[in-house]
């Protein structure tokens, strides 16, 4: 009977233990344009394997949490955003990956720091209705000298009717990702320090 009681406790914890709902916020919108790159330079950007594999947890609705892989979900979008501005883009896992930087004739290296927050106005539903993503970044030349620094923020909103219609519970995050990447692309394209 005592053992049965313990088993009940374990099962109860397993049942009610708080757990974040996994979502995906990778953008779907095509960032490439047919006009081609405006800056004829080969650039790299750095996302460490540790950042790529890090699961981020932020609030959803009804006291629940959502979890996602922030860097992993934005990795391809950053590649596409930079590819619309620069003639060649390469992802590296370490800023000091000299063989890859040399092989690709890289002249600038962008180092992003990405953060996100989310919330929901739903009391009984967990998907976030508001999402915000910030990309803070600096760009250094091949000697390690910082040539540019900036940050940009994107916001996304979604309603419960959109979640129930599409089953896309990461929709507000996806919209925030698309917004921040569009702004990043415009910001970088307009930075005279990078030309």
């Amino acid at each position, binding site marked *: *009977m005592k053992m*049965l*009681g313990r*088993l*009940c406790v*374990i*099962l*109860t*914890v*397993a*049942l009610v*233990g708080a*757990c*974040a*709902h*996994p*979502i*995906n916020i*990778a953008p*779907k919108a095509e960032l*490439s344009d047919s006009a081609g790159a405006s800056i004829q330079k080969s650039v790299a950007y750095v996302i460490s394997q540790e950042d790529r594999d890090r*699961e981020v947890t932020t609030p959803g609705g009804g006291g629940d949490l959502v*979890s996602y*892989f922030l860097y*992993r*979900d934005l*990795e*391809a979008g950053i*590649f*596409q955003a930079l*590819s619309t501005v620069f003639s060649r883009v*390469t*992802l590296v896992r370490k800023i000091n990956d000299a063989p890859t930087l040399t092989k690709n004739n890289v002249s600038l290296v962008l180092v992003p720091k990405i953060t996100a927050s989310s919330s929901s106005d739903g009391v009984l539903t967990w998907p976030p209705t508001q999402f915000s993503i910030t990309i803070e970044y600096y760009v250094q030349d091949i000697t390690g000298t910082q040539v540019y620094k900036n940050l940009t923020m994107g916001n996304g909103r979604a309603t419960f009717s959109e979640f129930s219609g599409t*089953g*896309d519970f*990461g929709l507000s995050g996806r919209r925030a990702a698309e917004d921040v990447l569009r702004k990043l692309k415009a910001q970088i394209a307009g930075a005279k320090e990078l030309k």
Partner: protein
Amino acid sequence: MRALLAILVFAVISGCALTAPNYSASVENAQMLRDSGINKARVGKFQADPKTANNEAISLRGSSMASPVGGKFTEYLEDAIRSELNIARIFDDKSTIEIGGVLIQNDVSVGSISEGTGIMEARITVKRDSQIRFDKTKSVTITFESSFAGAVAIPRGVQAYPNLVQKFLSALYADKEFIAALK
């Protein structure tokens, strides 16, 4: 007491419908394609082995995980290849080179109390002007941390699926014969 236990056990293991996360295209995979110097290609319709492929649902401790792309995992795989070709700027829906295949095994398991596993096996073909240039079966497996608690193990199984697909595609793109068939 036994009734309570039965209710709790049922609650822990009882099934519900889940959807696999959308595939986040791997830039490293796309760079492999871009740097290989291959021609532009399109992605054909994948088939599934009805006996082994779990094309419409993967069971995770009684819960059912479906594909977010057309409700079929063959379409998930097609979409993943298409997205990486697209990022590498070598996707062309009108190309005469077509990547296709048959999904043979497609499974994620969180049955163990400490470790989850996944397997994907597919016969991949490359056709140029309807002539087969590549025909090979590729297979990968993954392992990931799991848990006794279904509330932890099932979401981990769900999150592992895109990693399984990414590993499969990475293995495919690393195959020199596959790359040669696309040149």
